[in-house]
């Protein structure tokens, strides 16, 4: 196991290097720079600005400097908000995105697993179709429709929850639900498929034959095996939740990292764009590794495949 983890970490290093290099050069090739403004800046001032951030140096020198500061885990100052560093921005934004993502994940599991189990138990019955139809609505409407709809009903009409911002528990409710909906759909579908298969297997039939209650059969026997694919889904889900939260963070004005990323891309804040992309890459590689480890722990067969 240790060897497996070590090997994965070693493989990841060139990937991160690759991401850093690609983003660096893509950004430098793109038209426009971080210090363009509608108001003309005298050329002298423009030159001073470029010099201040080392943008007047040859590209390779800039690249070298960038890599060397990366080694020191220093992502540099933000070009758009020079009074702060990219490290600051990630430190402030990521916990927010993480909390939102985790809350959404919990909601997605709480909605998705029961719905999937229910549909599987009622397989081929009208209730199965009905449950899956309702569930499917979750991915048939984009989050940027669901979000404003929830705001419209629960914030502006019923005044139950605030329509925006972050900090109080009540402000978590609407964005987390909006973000959770599509994921609950996937979890429900996975659970249903897997449960269908498991419910058909001999040991479940045996348990039923022995007269175990339906609930007990589901809970004790079936669900344990049925959740495996859900676990493997969690890896990509972390990725999806972080990128999916871009929209949610925009609609609900949540100061999370996803929103910072989009904003920095639009304003050509090179350092922040590179910093966030790198940060997310490391995060996703880490999340996938954790999931793989979990999977091995849960399902010993996997080593022999």
């Amino acid at each position: 196991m240790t060897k497996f983890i070590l090997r994965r970490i070693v493989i990841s290093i060139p990937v991160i290097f690759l991401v850093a290099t690609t983003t660096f050069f893509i950004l430098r090739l793109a038209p426009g720079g971080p210090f363009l403004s509608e108001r003309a800046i005298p050329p002298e001032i423009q030159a001073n600005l470029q010099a201040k951030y080392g943008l007047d140096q040859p590209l390779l020198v800039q690249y070298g400097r960038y890599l060397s500061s990366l080694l020191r885990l220093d992502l540099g100052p933000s070009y758009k908000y020079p009074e702060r560093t990219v490290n600051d921005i990630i430190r402030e934004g990521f916990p927010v995105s993480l909390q939102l993502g985790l809350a959404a994940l919990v909601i997605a599991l709480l909605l998705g697993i029961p719905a999937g189990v229910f549909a599987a138990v009622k397989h081929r019955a009208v209730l199965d179709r009905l449950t899956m139809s309702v569930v499917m609505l979750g991915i048939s409407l984009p989050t940027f429709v669901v979000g404003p709809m929830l705001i419209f009903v629960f914030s502006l009409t019923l005044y139950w929850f605030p329509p925006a911002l972050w900090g109080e528990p009540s402000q978590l409710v609407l964005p987390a639900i909006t973000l959770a909906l599509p994921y609950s759909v996937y979890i429900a579908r996975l659970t249903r498929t897997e449960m269908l298969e498991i419910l058909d297997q001999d040991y479940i039939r045996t348990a039923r034959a022995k007269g175990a209650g339906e609930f007990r059969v589901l809970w004790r026997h079936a669900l344990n095996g049925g959740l495996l694919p859900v676990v493997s889904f969690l890896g990509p889900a972390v990725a999806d939740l972080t990128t999916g939260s871009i929209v949610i963070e925009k609609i609900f004005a949540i100061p999370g990292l996803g929103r910072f990323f989009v904003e920095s891309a639009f304003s050509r804040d090179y350092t922040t764009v590179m910093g966030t992309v790198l940060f997310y890459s490391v995060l996703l590689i880490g999340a996938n590794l954790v999931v793989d480890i979990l999977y091995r722990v849960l399902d010993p067969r996997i080593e022999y495949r």
Partner: protein
Amino acid sequence: MKIRVASIPQLAPDPVISSLSPRAVVWSRLSRDPWMMTCAIALGAVLLSTILAPWIAPYPYDQIELRLGASAPSWNHWMGTDTLGRDLLSRCFYGGQISIAVGVVGTLVSLVIGVLYGSISGYRGGRTDELMMRFVDLLYSLPYLFLVIILLVFFSSSILMLFVALGLVQWLTMARIVRGQVLSLKNAEFIQAARVSGTNDIGILFRHLLPNMAGPIVVYATLTVPSVILQEAFLSFLGLGVQPPRSSWGTLISDGAGVMGLFPWLVFFPAIALAVVLFALNFLGDGLRDALDPRQRHD
């Protein structure tokens, strides 16, 4: 919104079914199912309306009538007009063209790359396979949508770029599925036979392997189209989708979502159109998968 379908049945080829013409089996299963038929008909209707847009749209999609402004649905404009006084029904028809085209082309891009990559990896096997699959694993852990956003922001968002960018996000899963299929098929007797009779690798791949993996590929493709359509909508929301005066359902919806409280029809109708298509495609995809799945044969 990045959506990946994590569990695709890694189908073992079923000689019985394939000898009975899988298409017939699947068709008979689907056509017996009224839900599937409803979905298929709804999908067909929407598809037809977008294809026929130039003939059935009551107005040009970009005809502005400022005086009208955002007007509620009426006899002249069945779905109302947008804030520029453009007919929403016509815009929905044309918007559908783009959304569906993006979905289909994005999926095709992923299909081509994924099938080639996956079959080479699976067919070659051994060290090549190991390397190629490691590479896919690694790419999986990249924040893709972030890269797509960077590409679109920095190199202007043309439709072509959109197709490519979205296709590039999707091919990984396709490659995995195809590789799994090839691995399980390549030692089958009929492949061995072909090889012995002197068919070269490319011939084996295209004449023998691909036709036998069509099922899972079609299933996955059916499920990919809606997720690409959704991703286009997502990019539209960020202002990176199709550019004016053209619009996709995604741009229509994101334009309408904000003014939901004032002009509800602006989000309502395009959202319905999008939802019907996504809903139907997802349901059909699931249905196809169930129909193709040999595990379900007994009922």
